[in-house]
């Protein structure tokens, strides 16, 4: 039995709208990247916690990239970057590094593939 050719657009539209409404079935999990330094300066009991709300941290990739900025920085003991909350939680030694230094590292312009530089992350809030 022949089928009307209009079945194709009907199927296309039904499945596309179906796919759109199905999106709620796939919730976005929390994404985070964690870094623990093996060479933090000073005693651990001297460490403080700094929480930054960071514009630009929006997914696993950017959370990983953000975390890597601090892997070789003395004074940073741990860093957890939570993409879903757009925040980074630092444990740092205030005798080695200050919150302003931490902020300056994330806001430093980064060299892109095309040779230009661009500021990727912006600290919106620190506490």
């Amino acid at each position, binding site marked *: 039995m022949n089928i009307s*050719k209009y079945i194709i657009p009907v199927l*296309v539209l039904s499945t596309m709208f179906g796919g*759109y409404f199905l999106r709620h079935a796939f919730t*976005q999990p929390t994404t985070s990247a964690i870094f623990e330094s093996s060479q933090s300066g000073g005693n651990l009991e001297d460490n403080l916690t700094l929480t930054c709300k960071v514009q630009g941290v929006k997914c*696993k*990739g950017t959370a990983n990239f953000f975390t890597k900025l601090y892997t070789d920085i003395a004074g940073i003991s741990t860093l957890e970057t939570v993409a879903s909350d757009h925040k980074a939680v630092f444990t740092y030694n205030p005798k080695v590094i200050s919150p302003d230094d931490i902020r300056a590292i994330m806001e430093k312009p980064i060299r*892109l593939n*095309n*040779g230009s530089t661009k500021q990727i992350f912006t600290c919106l809030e620190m506490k």
Partner: protein
Amino acid sequence: MKIRYLRWSLLTVVVGALTWMALGNGERSFEAYCPFGGIESLYGLFREGQFTCALGPLNLSMLVAILVLTLLAKKAFCSWVCPIGFLGELLSKIGIKIVPGKFQISESVNRWFKLLRYISLAAVLFFTYRTGELILRGYDPFYAIFSGMGHGTLGNVTILVMSLIAIGSLVIPMFFCRYLCPLGAALDPFSKLGLIKICRNEETCIECGECQTACPHGLAPQDTIFLRDSDCTNCLECVEACPEEETLNLKLKL
């Protein structure tokens, strides 16, 4: 109503909506609607329970929708929804007018070249799964076009790749879809199983070859009873081009 006008109208709406989103309107990025993003997310989701950068639930649900559509109507997504397929089709129509002579590619070369899209699929998935980022999206026409060359951040290599794809599309119809599209490669096995196929009535067919000329992918419905080729997108150009009534039709066939 000519089915092509209906199809092009739908594609124009899709391109318009994506452009509107690309200009910063709407609550989501245009990339959120790309079903290939669903494939790129799979490894991260299964391994780490996380979506790959810039991707989200809508990419996955669109992928599910397209798999269902492909199992029903072959690669109808490619000719009825995909903006890159639409641009490829428009470029090939322009190419027919401006490129002197007709560039013919032999069937055996065509078959070998089609393997490139599997290499493209493997490369994209390998690098995406390895890095957790859409590391090759700078070479993706969908991203490059709708993001305005990555909001101006993409380099000369991207411009070169896009130019080669555009020139290829002018010379060989549906160049990107045929030889480079990773989504097309991923849909191939599902398209083979597609239930709704073009069917040729042997008794009324005059074997004029108009259907093959009209097919954007150069398929030959006149050589078969049921067109099972995974490249068939059910665009229905062959059905409209056929001069004989009730010769090419759609039928359900396993």
